[in-house]
């Protein structure tokens, strides 16, 4: 492991509080903590260069525009893209909504889109909405909870009408890392547009959009040390130029007439209104922070943590503990989703700990903060045979001692709640 967790924590002011209050934060798939560098970049913008972008020709106006443009370049190169291929949006959800809203007009409304069962709601619901609005057909393919999505899974659902496939590179509930490069290549051979939900991959592993062979890709800044309210839609120039604009207003136009308008070039074509300037600057600072660590190191650190987690799971051998997702750390992100139950007596007490109680008790007993619920992935949760699970998820500032504390908490919960 090339990451010095203690050293990294020094960059995160919130760890002062975590130390004081004995908090072990393990909900990084929901959002991550922010290093001082990110907060400082935002503060510095407001203290020194605040003004609107693409407008003023005065000094601070130009500074703001430069900072904003540099942020886009920096974020683009982080995922192997060019600046004009990055559209700033609010988050991955907005990026996927743009895809689902605009692609039907590119591919034709008589088309079919394939998504998988392990998708987050933000890669499901926009397609359902598009289905109602534009008449495209949505097919949800099955996937096994302990295995990657395969070409065969997709092939079973392909028809001559399939024009779009939209898949997550990493599942936020199973932790499965899907191998999408080969899938993207085959989809392109068939002329099918490939959309990737990278909300859980860009923050945690090296991602190169060209190697992925995708047409559109979505991610959120807040899940990768950046501020909330900023995210990106990557798109090849070809697809971005073919898609109609999403929202109208300032920034996205070239000229406006009494009876019409022409659009600005991409990416501005999709960025109506004054953008989230501080967000872009903050996300760029987050990218710098991650680059300094190295995404290979981020990935190997988390791989080590999930490997350790699975070992601890076996070592503790808690009677009621059931976890999901692939057991092979090579294809597993730092996400550990589980339940605590032992048979079913029909009574609430004694054989089952509701995920809300797991989460509540883990916090109160050992300060371990984990998520409970359906994790915005109801179809996958239901396919696991339940309606709620608990989830621990790691990032660069988590160490093995956090995993130890987590299992201590689970042990105490089992003792307290399971008869």
């Amino acid at each position, binding site marked *: 492991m090339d990451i010095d967790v203690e050293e990294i924590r020094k960059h995160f002011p919130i760890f002062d509080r975590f130390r004081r209050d004995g908090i072990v934060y393990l909900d990084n798939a929901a959002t991550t903590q922010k290093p001082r560098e990110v907060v400082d970049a935002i503060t510095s913008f407001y203290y020194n260069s605040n003004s609107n972008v693409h407008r003023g020709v005065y000094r601070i106006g130009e500074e703001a525009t430069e900072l904003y443009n540099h942020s886009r370049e920096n974020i683009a190169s982080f995922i192997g893209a060019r600046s004009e291929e990055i559209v700033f949006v609010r988050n991955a959800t907005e990026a996927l909504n743009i895809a689902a809203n605009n692609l039907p007009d590119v591919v034709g409304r008589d088309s079919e889109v394939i998504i998988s069962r392990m998708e987050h709601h933000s890669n499901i619901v926009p397609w359902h909405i598009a289905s109602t609005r534009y008449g495209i057909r949505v097919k949800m393919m099955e996937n096994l909870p302990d295995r990657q999505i395969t070409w065969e899974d997709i092939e079973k659902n392909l028809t001559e009408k399939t024009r779009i496939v939209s898949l997550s590179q990493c599942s936020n509930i199973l932790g499965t890392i899907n191998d999408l490069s080969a899938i993207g290549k085959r989809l392109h051979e068939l002329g099918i547009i490939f959309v990737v939900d990278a909300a859980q991959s860009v923050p945690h592993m090296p991602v190169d959009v060209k190697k992925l062979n995708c047409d559109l890709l979505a991610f959120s800044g807040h899940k990768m040390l950046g501020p909330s309210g900023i995210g990106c839609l990557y798109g090849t120039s070809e697809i971005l130029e073919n898609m109609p604009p999403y929202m109208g207003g300032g920034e996205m136009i070239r000229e406006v007439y009494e009876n019409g308008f022409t659009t600005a070039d991409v990416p501005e074509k999709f960025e109506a209104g004054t953008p989230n300037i501080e967000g872009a600057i903050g996300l760029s600072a987050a990218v710098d922070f991650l680059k300094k660590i190295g995404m290979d190191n981020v990935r190997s650190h988390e791989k080590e943590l999930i490997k350790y987690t699975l070992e601890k799971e076996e070592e503790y051998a808690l009677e009621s503990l059931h976890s999901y997702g692939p057991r092979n750390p090579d294809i597993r992100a730092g996400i550990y989703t589980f339940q605590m139950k032992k048979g079913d007596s029909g009574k609430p007490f004694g054989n089952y700990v509701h995920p809300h109680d797991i989460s509540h008790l883990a916090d109160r*007993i050992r300060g371990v903060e984990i998520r*409970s619920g359906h994790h915005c992935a109801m179809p996958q949760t239901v396919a696991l045979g339940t309606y*709620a699970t608990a989830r621990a998820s790691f990032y660069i500032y988590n160490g093995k001692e956090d995993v130890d504390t987590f299992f201590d908490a689970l042990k105490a919960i089992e003792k307290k709640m399971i008869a």
Partner: protein
Amino acid sequence: MTDDTIYSQILDDHYREPRNFGRMEDPDVQVTETNPTCGDTISLFIKVKDGNLAEISYVASGCLISVASASILSEKATGSSLKEIRTMTKSDVLKNLGLKLGPAREKCALISYDALMKAIDRYNSS
């Protein structure tokens, strides 16, 4: 923090031995409520006699808070008039639990209340 302050003894007790737990034969009204964020469900049954809640029971698959809250509510409500029960507010229910809850958990605590109010309204309009 000691284990005892995690969930109060009273809540723990209601969860371990929920009062009035189970299905009911021939209820006057049956209502099922779900909390979509965690999938908690409760099916609640009531029997009414002379304007009073004669019997109440429920089956719930939920967290400690939701089960304990249903149990406490069922004890409080049994024997009272429907009119009286209908004047109970959400904050009364939360106060009865004696635990400060965040916004997410409040929904768990109130699922049985919502079910009971719905059951009474349905009885009154039938």
